[in-house]
């Protein structure tokens, strides 16, 4: 994060500098213009969407659609830096107790009403009341709007990571018209400020977005970046169609019934690559494939046993099965392209040494009791990873058994305090690692630490590192604290990150400038006639 920019609102200059390095943004002098306008794009989405209330939903399928409709004050760019979106800039007071946001001029909602600071106040009010990640605002004393273009947040205590939290796109604080502030949870009317507006939403079937003609692009940028930047709707409409069968998505893309799809099975990727009318777009680092031990329960409460399992794991086989051979080996909890990435603790990764595992196992005093691996069938990669992990554990003499439930059950079981029903829990961390180290490591901080310490009391050393990650005044110190925490977690075998999964998206060849990202972004995407 660039503190200078935050203080002085010198965003455009800095953004331009960082954009210059991006290969897809050659036209720096002039902002993006659509080479061609028009066209209706149909996108095959894998998961069903129940609600487009972006304030009360954390699911990816909701974000896929809703983030093309809504915008926030601040968001993240392509490289996960904080950038202004509806705000022109933000000024952080020297004592870090107030943040003053200047709003961009001429922004209007899809209902035609101009956006003012009153709407921002109302949005924050709704989020504080029912927003899913409202703990972001725990340390906030209040907010007010001294004039229609200014919004001020007052903090209780200085929190160096506040803007990082505020710009999170996990459950973002999207800006909605003031009159919608009392919409109940899951029922927010789909009116935002984004380049596309909602035309029709049929849960279970499709959502159709159309270009919002009065959209005013953010001229502080020249190109789309991350969730923000200079955005234009070139397409007339975008229809998200729910197509849960992977084969149906592939077939739909081949026949041209769909112009874009997500999550193509690897088995089909080869054929897709040979098809000249299809462009295959791998989205690297979609999630970190991971298993977590239950440290409240024997024998996974025993460090030597956990290390035995760690030594037994061969990540190539696990990731091959989990992702159908579309993965990168990856140490730890961040991806190499991220600023906070560190390989601290890499000695613990991919040891794949059965002899060492058996030695540790002997030291642990393991007596052949059954070890339950908790996984689910809703997410095939988790199930597949568990299957191979089981085989590798059995190979070193651990009586590993699978416990397969559906996702809600397995989440509930894994969150129970002092549970004795399972030993390893399989999951995939997607959004949080993409948001940075701070967002990711909260999975490993108590209360609720995913390695389930007894009575939910986290390991003191790990907790101390977590505290430093949150409170150290400089980014450098916070990054060091993260490296320390990652090393501790890996050395104490409190988590087994297997690697990062690649999710393959694809579009028809005539679809241009579609860059895979955390959501399918349709601004600045255009279709050749």
């Amino acid at each position, binding site marked *: 994060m660039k503190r200078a920019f935050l203080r002085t609102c010198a965003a455009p200059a800095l953004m331009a500098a960082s954009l210059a390095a991006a290969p897809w943004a050659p036209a720096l002098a002039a902002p993006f213009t659509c080479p061609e306008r028009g066209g209706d794009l149909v996108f095959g989405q894998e998961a069903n969407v129940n609600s487009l209330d972006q304030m009360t939903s954390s699911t990816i399928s909701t974000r896929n659609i809703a983030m093309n409709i809504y915008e926030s004050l601040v968001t993240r760019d392509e490289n996960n830096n904080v950038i202004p979106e509806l705000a022109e800039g933000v000024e952080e007071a020297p004592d870090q107790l107030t943040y003053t946001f200047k709003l961009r001029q001429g922004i209007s909602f899809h209902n035609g009403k101009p956006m003012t600071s009153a709407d921002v106040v109302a949005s924050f009010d709704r989020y504080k009341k029912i927003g899913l990640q409202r703990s972001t605002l725990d340390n906030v004393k209040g907010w007010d709007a001294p004039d229609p273009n200014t919004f001020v947040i007052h903090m209780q205590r200085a929190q160096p990571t506040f803007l990082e939290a505020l710009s999170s796109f996990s459950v973002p604080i999207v800006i909605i018209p003031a009159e919608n502030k009392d919409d109940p949870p899951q029922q927010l009317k789909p009116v935002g400020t984004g380049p596309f507006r909602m035309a029709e939403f049929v849960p279970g079937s499709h959502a159709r977005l159309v270009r919002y003609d009065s959209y005013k692009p953010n001229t502080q940028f020249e190109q789309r970046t991350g969730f923000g930047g200079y955005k234009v709707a070139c397409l007339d409409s975008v229809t998200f169609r729910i197509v849960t069968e992977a084969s149906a998505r592939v077939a739909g893309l081949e026949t041209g019934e769909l112009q874009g799809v997500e999550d193509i099975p690897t*088995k089909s990727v080869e054929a897709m690559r040979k098809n000249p009318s299809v462009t295959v777009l791998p989205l690297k680092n979609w999630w970190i494939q991971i298993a977590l031990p239950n440290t409240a329960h024997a024998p996974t409460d025993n460090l030597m046993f956990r290390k035995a399992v760690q030594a037994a794991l061969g990540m190539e086989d696990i990731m091959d099965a989990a992702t159908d051979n579309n993965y990168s080996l990856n140490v730890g909890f961040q991806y190499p392209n991220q600023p906070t990435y560190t390989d601290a603790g890499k000695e613990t990764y991919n040891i794949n040494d059965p002899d060492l595992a058996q030695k540790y196992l002997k030291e642990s005093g393991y007596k052949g009791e059954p070890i339950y691996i908790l996984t689910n069938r809703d997410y095939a990669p988790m199930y597949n990873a568990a299957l191979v992990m089981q085989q590798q554990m059995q190979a070193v003499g651990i009586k590993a058994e699978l416990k397969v*439930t*559906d996702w809600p059950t397995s989440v509930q079981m894994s969150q129970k305090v002092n549970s004795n029903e399972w030993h390893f829990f399989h999951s995939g961390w997607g959004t949080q690692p993409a948001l940075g180290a701070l967002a990711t490591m909260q999975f490993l901080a108590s209360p609720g630490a995913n390695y389930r310490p007894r009575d939910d009391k986290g390991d003191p050393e790990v907790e101390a590192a977590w505290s430093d990650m949150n409170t150290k005044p400089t980014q450098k110190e916070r990054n060091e604290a993260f490296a320390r925490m990652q090393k501790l977690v890996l050395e104490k075998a409190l988590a087994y990150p297997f690697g990062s999964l690649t999710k393959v998206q694809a579009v028809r060849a005539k679809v241009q400038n579609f860059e895979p990202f955390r959501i399918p972004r349709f601004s600045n995407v255009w279709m050749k006639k």
Partner: protein
Amino acid sequence: MSETGALPLEAIQSEAEPEPKRVHPFWMTLRRLFRHRLFVTGLILFGIIAFMAAAAPWITDINPNRLSMRNKFLPPGGDFVLGTDNFGRSLWSRVVWGARLSVIIGVSVVALNAVFGTLIGALAGYFRRLDNVLMRINDALMAFPAILLAIGVTAMLGPSTANVIIALGIVYVPRTARIVRASVIVLREMEYVQAAVAAGAGHWRILRRHILPNAMAPMIVQLSFLFAYAVLSEATLSFLGLGAVPPTPTWGNIMAEGRDFMRDAPWIIAIPGVTLMITVLGLNMLGDGLRDVLDPRLRIQQ
């Protein structure tokens, strides 16, 4: 999934009011069965599946759950007779062991129905006071769309082979009970039963000696169809991810795991699918044969 087991019977039964019928000597019935072409065809088809189920350990040499990533997506023919799936597991092994599971589940569901369906049906049909209560519960259970009830019960109990059997039991027992009850109500009013009552025979004795033996024929026919629906329903539940816990090789599980690859590796779903079809076909033919021979009032021709 369907509740079709009850269908042909009930529909026709309501039409053709039963008359007392002679009990066929065992051998005569058997001879007539073996002269029935459908029955024999069904017997052969189902016999093949039953043999696979019984002989599974001897006719497969690869553990159905053994992963072998090097051998994934091999088409049928070659080293693996029926090819391999996305984990390189032998489909021949998995389909054969799947047959075993299907047969076990079918037999168990049939047994549950034979016991509880008969019991509830007989009690409801014989004791008027129980009838109302039992049949109301029955009606309520039958009012659910069958598969949603099964989904709910398996979700409640957790996915496992035993729980699938229980779920299918809860779905089908009311249907069997209703058929038994219909026969018992008719038989109860028969002169010979009334005579036994007049002679002071106890309820239990009347039910056991005079009523149930004569209600057997429609029961047996119903149970043979039920076997088919149980196998079909189990596959459907597994396919929806609610059956036996993977990686247990059931046909539904194999097909569910293969559906992502049906475009490029269609054999993964085609092989268990065809096997499932053969099984159900065989059982339905068996059922038709049994119905024609055992329950002549349902027999329209031949």
